[in-house]
């Protein structure tokens, strides 16, 4: 097997409140191959965005990387000094955020904001940066790029702004692109365009993509592997093309039920009862237990580990052996 581009193991991120610290992300491991597509799915509060920030050294002050290792192209990022992280950010690993309306600086032209990355990481002239920016705008499908580079963010539509963000992220030909809910703030039709664009650019440039979203079908359509997260832990990792049939974790199944309900438009939407508990109320055992229809006494006590199910397929549930039977019974 080839050397992975990114190998994260046992990553733990804690939220510090006074003397207390709560593991917002609790012992997560995953890997992304060069040119691979990993999808990360979870509700808000699942800690998925924190992973993105931890990978780029942008964790807010109240968050702390407690343990675990992040190997990127063989380099230990968790040990990298801030100056080294700055070189990596935007050049080797880049980010696309959820809300393009606020993620772009309102007082600079979009073109400038793209060329700025180029000039930061590659010592090139203003003129060359401008030409490359125009080329990038064209690449991400912005019409009349020579003109649009002098537009300010407020002069563009949401979809165009997100294209600018993607152009910015791809400017220095990174090895890894992390897109955190890149389509959530956009209209449904624009969402599809942006995902198609990401897919096309991924194939064109060979960049590895980590797509973070709460939307399982969207992620499954895009990614090769899907990692389902719940309350800071991995619930299940499965190949994208089989996840709808082969999902084993009750939470993943719940998400699938919701998604199918949405698609077929049944009158009563199936939902997972309750919501992700706030970090202060994380239970000691399985964090999903309180909402799980299959929870047993043991689930409240012990933390489930990841169990292999098939090739490239693992799930963390204490009642995996009962799962198939239960499902058939009901």
């Amino acid at each position: 097997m080839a050397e992975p581009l990114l190998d994260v193991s046992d990553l733990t991120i804690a939220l510090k409140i006074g003397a207390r610290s709560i593991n917002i992300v609790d012992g997560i491991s995953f890997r992304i191959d060069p040119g691979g597509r990993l999808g990360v799915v979870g509700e808000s509060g699942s800690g998925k965005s924190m992973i993105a920030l931890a990978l780029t050294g942008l964790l807010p002050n109240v968050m702390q990387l407690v343990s675990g290792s992040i190997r990127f192209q063989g380099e230990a990022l968790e040990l990298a000094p801030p100056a080294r992280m700055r070189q990596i950010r935007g050049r080797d690993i880049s980010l696309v955020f959820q809300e393009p309306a606020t993620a772009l600086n309102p007082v600079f032209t979009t073109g400038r904001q793209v060329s700025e990355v180029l000039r930061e990481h590659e010592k090139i002239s203003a003129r060359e940066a401008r030409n490359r920016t125009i080329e990038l705008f064209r690449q991400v499908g912005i019409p009349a790029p020579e003109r649009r580079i002098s537009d300010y963010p407020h002069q563009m539509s949401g979809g165009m702004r997100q294209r600018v963000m993607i152009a910015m992220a791809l400017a220095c030909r990174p090895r890894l692109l992390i897109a955190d809910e890149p389509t959530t703030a956009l209209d449904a039709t624009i969402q599809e365009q942006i995902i198609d664009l990401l897919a096309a650019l991924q194939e064109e440039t060979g960049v590895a993509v980590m797509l973070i979203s709460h939307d399982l079908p969207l992620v499954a359509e895009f990614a090769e592997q899907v990692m389902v997260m719940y309350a800071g832990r991995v619930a299940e990792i499965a190949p994208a093309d089989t996840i709808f049939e082969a999902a084993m974790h009750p939470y993943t199944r719940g998400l699938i039920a919701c998604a199918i309900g949405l698609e077929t438009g049944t009158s009563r939407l199936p939902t997972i009862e309750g919501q992700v508990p706030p970090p202060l109320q994380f239970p000691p055992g399985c964090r999903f237990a309180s909402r799980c229809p299959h929870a047993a006494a043991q689930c409240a006590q012990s933390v489930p580990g990841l169990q292999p199910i098939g090739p490239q397929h693992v799930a963390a549930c204490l009642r995996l052996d009962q799962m198939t039977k239960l499902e058939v019974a009901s």
Partner: protein
Amino acid sequence: MTDLTAFRSFSTRLTTRMSAAHLPLLIGGVIFGLIVLAAALGPFLTPYGPEDTSLMERFKGPSLAHPFGTDSFGRDILSRVLHGGHVSLGIGLAVITISAGLGIAIGATAGYFPRLDNPIMRVMDAGEAFPTLLMAIALAAVLGPGITNVILALGVAYAPRTARIVRASILVLSQQQFVEAARASGAGPLRIIGLHLLPNAMAPVVVQMTFIFADAVLAEAALSFIGVGPPPPAPTWGNIIADGRTYLYSASWITLFPGLAIFLTVLSLNLMGDGLRDLLDPRLKKVT
């Protein structure tokens, strides 16, 4: 055990967060309280009257008998500063009362009656085009010097500031459901404004009044200093400094102590204003 330590850390966290707003409020309140107390008890604290002259005791530096020294007439500076506090704080109090009264009336009218809003606020714009101090100087110059005129001038000059804040609050509050409900139940504008809107709009006004108090003390002192405030020999802080200015090099204490009194008063009011704002204004609390 762990629960107890968790609770302890939680409670210290709570107190540190509270003191972030309370500490300035507490320090400011204590200093201001002491100043008010000193000004009120002034006559009993020193054996001299503020205008008692003594030719034998001219230009005495700070000593046990005269902690703040004496001036060119041998008057005891401490007694004069304490008495000046009486005058300055009284003027400040009167100014915030007038500016709050005017400001609330104007601001509520502009905020509640959309038709009057624009004309009223344009007049406020023009009023604010004259810096407060300049307006006070002009009014005091035209009306003549005197405590009443200074109060009137400053009270009027600060009214637009209060009016603007009241108007903004009323504009937001009038859109709320409980006001609609009151209107639907047949309450008149006076009743709605007085009973439903103003009580909810008071928090920022109280904060603003504290800051206006601070500004008024500064402005009154400045007016006295340039000779358009309460006329001498009234011992206002500004007057004492104006007196001392002639002897700045030889008897700097005459200038030093009343200035410190102004500084401490204004500082304590600003601290209280900061604390009150953090406490009462949830929008600003989020920012800081």
